């Protein structure tokens, strides 16, 4: 797979450029003349242009002063002015365009070209009350932009582009109205319709905000522009926004989401999204339609998503609509890039941690292709992170390596230890998009990401010749190999059947695998006879997800859209956890299928001021043989243009669960299992969200209150069972209970200007009630009372500066109350530690500041410096308790294990276009 993609990458890099012609006004007749033979050698451009104007009476427009600094060396030989200019301007920061009068205009590349649609049409309308179909595309690469907002100015009529970038507006009052087109990270465009335009296939190009943080970073709620985006609890980002935020090694969309209120930022060891008191497995992560089950690279320090391959991400923090299901907390919907439709492009990012490269290109006029790959390398930063996550592990390993039972073993012979630790991660995204007709889009998206960690060691306790001259050898080798990753793909077919009916069908496959072999092989060699003994743990989790789904959109009439769809998912999940070769602690092989139907109605009332979205999702789960009905409802009401109230409520079910077997000393492992009718009931959650927003042209104030009541939350523990000598039944290791989450998210954002950013605050509480752990409610592991985040960015000349500061109350943890010893039947003494009530203690507050500075040499090349944890705050990750017995004194020792300290990074980014 990987090889195939790499080879196709090479082929593609030799492909020439494909330029698609743009709809353009006609060239004046004079400008079509052939210039037979004119040679200019290092002549200032205005002089060249004025010479040509005179000789061929060309119609040119340019600013003499602005062009004075550019010199031209060119030989016009049977060329038109247009052909000549194309080659001249290639090396200059200039471009040309043809205006409505047929004049050739030469301007700086940064200047936006005015065309007829940039001016209000003065004539008479020809069509009224018609249906407008179009798409919103990126002006630079021709990518269709999903979820962009299109609004008829001065009215409440508006819509949103679908996942393929298409939109339909019904009952547009006239063909001379103005459309306001906005998309996060892009300049909002006023697009003036005129009767000459094709209202069945309108292409609206929008331009990326040149300075990445200059424009809207976050699309919260807007009253004026984003009618269709008015979804409770939704945050939207494009990867371009992330580029200049401080980072540790990788530009990471999930880490960027963690800077928003309601998404926890204090879990350095997980890039998963802890959304509003939920855990990462309660967040549905969709990448081009397929579910990604594991989002971590390098022990969770980075998410598995390469920002170079991503076009758009939407995060629903709760109260999401009936289209999404199978998770109880949140949805992150990621849309991958299709690839440049206009020309070949490539780019590379180099950081202290990894190399990240991509290629995108059109293939003919109907195909586009993109491939993006990254791989870590063992630079100083990688090693630092790796050690942070494995040092505990290694210490333990080393202790085990001692020649057990022979204290002072060094005196008995040679003792050699070799340790080989190697580890890396890589991921690869590729997408092939085929547009056979204007109504169909077919795309194949593939993703593969893998982490490999080898922390093995071997030791050799050589010749024990002291004992009667016999030859006795003892070899110990510790294997500690972990592999985890995802392989997924989707084949999607979108079709616009009519101006009212649209469908989107997918076949997806997703596989998550995680294996760990943490074992010790002891080979004893006695006079040539070898005996092998394997002690340790073997773990294997393999999840397969086969999904077929179809979503339909039916615009029944103005202000009413019906969405409905079908989904079928088959899950095959295996999990085995065995010890010492033989004993199988847990061995599960689960199969289950869900069949789902949903329907929801998008209604606008009161002249568009009230937006209602009632819906229902019905799922049949074949394991429990039950139907699960999830009613959903959300609403927005615009009191005034600026002030809006919003709310959502719904029921959510989750059928696959990730169980966190938190065990730092052995490596923190998660595994997925499937619900059943007995010990692992289907998790259910009820959401209620109420909020309001107040939006000024430059500022947004947004408040949302939320409450989630969940039942059948599962925790896994081995603590209550004797695990000796036999396997475990699920009922002995999984404990179910309920959870209540409530809180408020507050966002104050300055959206525009050289200085912009936001302040986010979350006040929240998450409590669990699982009777096996405690007869009273206890705070959930992820419970954090206060989180305060300040994100500021400032543009100064060619510099982009950004700083983030995060403050978070401490997470709860279980401490110990004391320790004791028991004498066992054989006379040996065993130590026991007695934990406090579950999560009855709190770590100190977590806070840190990150800063970054990016210098833009040009729009193609920049260098970014960033410092993580600027003031080197020691944030506690977890505590380790040890009972140490020495000379009959038994004492307890506590160690605070810390998160990452100050960590600088440098990133070089280059792209062809």
């Amino acid at each position: 797979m990987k090889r195939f993609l790499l080879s196709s990458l090479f082929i593609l890099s030799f492909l020439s450029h494909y330029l698609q012609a743009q709809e353009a006004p006609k060239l004046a007749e004079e400008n079509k003349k052939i210039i037979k033979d004119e040679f200019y050698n290092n002549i200032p451009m205005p002089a060249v242009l004025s010479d040509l104007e005179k000789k061929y009476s060309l119609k040119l427009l340019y600013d003499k002063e602005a062009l004075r600094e550019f010199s031209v060396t060119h030989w016009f030989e049977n060329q038109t002015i247009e052909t000549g200019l194309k080659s001249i301007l290639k090396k200059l920061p200039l471009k040309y365009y043809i205006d409505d009068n047929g004049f050739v205009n030469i301007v700086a590349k940064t200047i936006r070209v005015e065309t007829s649609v940039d001016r209000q049409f003065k004539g008479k309308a020809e069509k009224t009350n018609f249906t407008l179909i179009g798409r919103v595309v990126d002006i630079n690469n021709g990518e269709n932009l999903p979820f962009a907002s299109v609004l008829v100015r001065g009215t409440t009529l508006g819509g949103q582009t679908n996942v393929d970038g298409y939109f339909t507006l019904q009952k547009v009052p006239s063909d001379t109205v103005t459309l306001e087109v906005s998309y996060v990270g892009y300049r909002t465009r006023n697009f003036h319709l005129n009767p000459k335009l094709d209202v069945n296939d309108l292409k609206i190009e929008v331009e990326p905000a040149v300075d990445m943080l200059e424009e809207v970073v976050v699309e919260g709620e807007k009253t004026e522009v984003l009618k269709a985006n008015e979804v409770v609890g939704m945050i939207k980002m494009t990867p371009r926004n992330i580029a200049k935020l401080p980072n540790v090694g990788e530009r990471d969309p999930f880490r960027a989401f963690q800077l928003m209120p309601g998404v926890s930022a204090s879990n350095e060891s997980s890039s998963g999204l802890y959304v509003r008191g939920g855990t990462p497995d309660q967040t549905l992560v969709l990448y081009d339609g397929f579910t990604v089950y594991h989002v971590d690279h390098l022990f969770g320090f980075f998410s598995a998503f390469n920002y170079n391959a991503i076009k758009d991400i939407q995060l629903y923090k709760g109260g999401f609509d009936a289209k999404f299901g199978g998770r109880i907390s949140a949805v992150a919907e990621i849309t991958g890039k299709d690839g440049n439709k206009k020309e070949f492009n490539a780019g590379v990012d180099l950081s202290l941690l990894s190399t990240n490269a991509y290629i995108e290109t059109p293939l003919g006029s109907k195909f586009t292709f993109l491939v993006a790959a990254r791989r870590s390398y063992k630079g100083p930063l990688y090693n630092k992170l790796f050690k942070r996550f494995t040092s505990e592990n290694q210490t333990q390993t080393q202790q085990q390596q001692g020649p057990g039972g022979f204290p002072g073993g060094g005196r008995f012979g040679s003792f050699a230890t070799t340790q080989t630790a190697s580890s890396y991660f890589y991921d690869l995204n590729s997408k092939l998009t085929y547009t056979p007709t204007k109504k169909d889009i077919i795309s194949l998206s593939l993703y593969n990401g893998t982490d490999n960690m080898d922390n093995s060691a071997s030791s050799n306790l050589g010749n024990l010749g002291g004992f009667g001259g016999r030859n006795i050898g003892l070899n110990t080798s510790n294997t500690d190999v972990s592999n985890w990753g995802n392989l997924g793909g989707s084949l999607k077919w979108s079709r616009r059947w009519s101006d009212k009916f649209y469908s989107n069908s997918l076949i997806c496959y997703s596989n998550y695998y995680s294996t760990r072999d943490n074992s010790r092989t002891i080979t004893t060699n006695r006079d040539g006879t070898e005996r092998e003994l394997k002690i340790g743990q073997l773990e294997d989790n393999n999840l397969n997800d086969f999904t077929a789904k179809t979503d339909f959109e039916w615009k029944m009439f103005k202000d009413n859209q019906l969405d409905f769809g079908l989904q079928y998912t088959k899950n095959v999940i295996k999990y085995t956890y065995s010890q010492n070769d033989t004993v199988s602690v847990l061995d599960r092989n689960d199969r289950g299928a869900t069949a789902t139907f949903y329907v929801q109605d998008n209604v606008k009332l009161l002249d568009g001021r009230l937006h209602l979205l009632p819906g229902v999702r019905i799922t049949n789960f074949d394991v429990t043989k039950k139907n699960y009905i999830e009613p959903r409802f959300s609403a927005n009401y615009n009191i005034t243009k600026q002030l809006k109230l919003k709310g959502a409520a719904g029921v959510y079910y989750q059928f696959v669960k990730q169980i966190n077997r938190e065990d730092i000393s052995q490596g923190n492992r998660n595994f997925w299992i499937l619900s059943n009718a007995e010990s692992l009931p289907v998790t259910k959650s009820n959401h209620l969200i109420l909020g309001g927003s107040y939006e000024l042209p430059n500022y947004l104030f947004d408040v949302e209150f939320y409450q989630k009541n969940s039942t059948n939350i599962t925790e896994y523990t081995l603590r209550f069972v004797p695990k000796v000598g036999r396997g475990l039944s699920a009922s002995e290791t999984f404990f179910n209970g309920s959870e209540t989450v409530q809180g408020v998210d507050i966002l104050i954002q300055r959206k525009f200007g050289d200085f912009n950013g936001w302040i986010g605050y979350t006040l929240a509480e998450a409590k669990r009630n699982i009777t096996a752990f405690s007869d009273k409610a206890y705070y959930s592991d992820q419970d954090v009372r206060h989180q305060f985040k300040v994100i500021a960015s400032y543009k100064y000349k060619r510099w982009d500066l950004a700083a983030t500061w995060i403050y978070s109350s401490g997470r709860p943890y279980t401490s110990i109350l004391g320790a004791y010893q028991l004498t066992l039947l054989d006379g040996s003494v065993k130590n026991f530690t007695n934990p406090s009530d579950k999560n009855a203690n709190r770590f100190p507050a977590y806070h840190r500041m990150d800063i970054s500075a990016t210098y833009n040499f040009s729009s193609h090349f920049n260098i970014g410096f960033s410092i993580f944890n600027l003031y080197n705050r020691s944030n506690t990750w977890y505590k380790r308790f040890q009972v140490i017995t020495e000379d009959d004194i038994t004492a307890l020792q506590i160690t605070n294990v810390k998160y990452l300290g100050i960590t600088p990074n440098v990133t070089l980014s280059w792209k062809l276009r």
Partner: protein
Amino acid sequence: MKNIYIILLLGTIQSILWACTETNDVINPGDKPVIEAYLAPNHPVSLKAYTEIPYSESSEGVSQVIDGLSIKIIGSNGKTFVLKSVGNGAYESAANELIGVAGTTYSLEFDYKGRKVTATTEIPAKPVNFASDKKEISRTQIDLSAGFQGGVRPPGGGFNEQNTSVNLTWSNPNNYYHFIAVENVETDPVQILIPPTGRTFPNFRFFNEPLTGSSNEVRSQSFQYFGKHNIILYRVNPEYAALYQSSGTTSQNLSTPPTSIINGLGIFTGINADTIKFVVNKN
């Protein structure tokens, strides 16, 4: 003016959200007594009670014995033991008061710091058909007290014995937990391996765990002393087997110490045993 509303709103919200919040109590160390009691049929009751080593970040504490409790053990056969505190944390029944036969259930009961500490256990049946394939083995003494100085090899040789194992078998069709312990019964046992001067070997434990199988082996090198031994096969209850589960050591995976004692810690369990005599001879 707007600000005031926002502050008022936030204040109200906060009070609504937190009006009903309860926090988890921290039970102080020392609130739960640690009990150690193995009830064997036809033996008087012997029980130990002591406190935990209290944990604090600043100081190191020690375990204290608990004397003077009034502890009752109530049997399902109608017989109740009232234990006598004999000092140093030990409690005993009268010498003529003996634990009953297999199948009898016993309940522990006493008050400690305002809580009722209780536990229940059953006396398991005696192991069946316990046998070993050998009654004796021979070992050579190894004296390392001279050390390795000057390249002088120590006399003797430890591992040139027959590499034999003592194979133990018993019937266990219902997969009950069994546990092997080996006990030297010499009054003045002689070490097989004499450590170098100034050093001590730690006690070579038999790395046994309770097993649900029907056989086990004791390797000849496991014996530390010459002379007479008892090889004891215990039949134990799951609450004893639970003591062998590994317990976590970090705040992320601490496990509650396995105990069947409510409001207490430690072990209160019935055991039964069969014994085989065994001799380690000196070559």
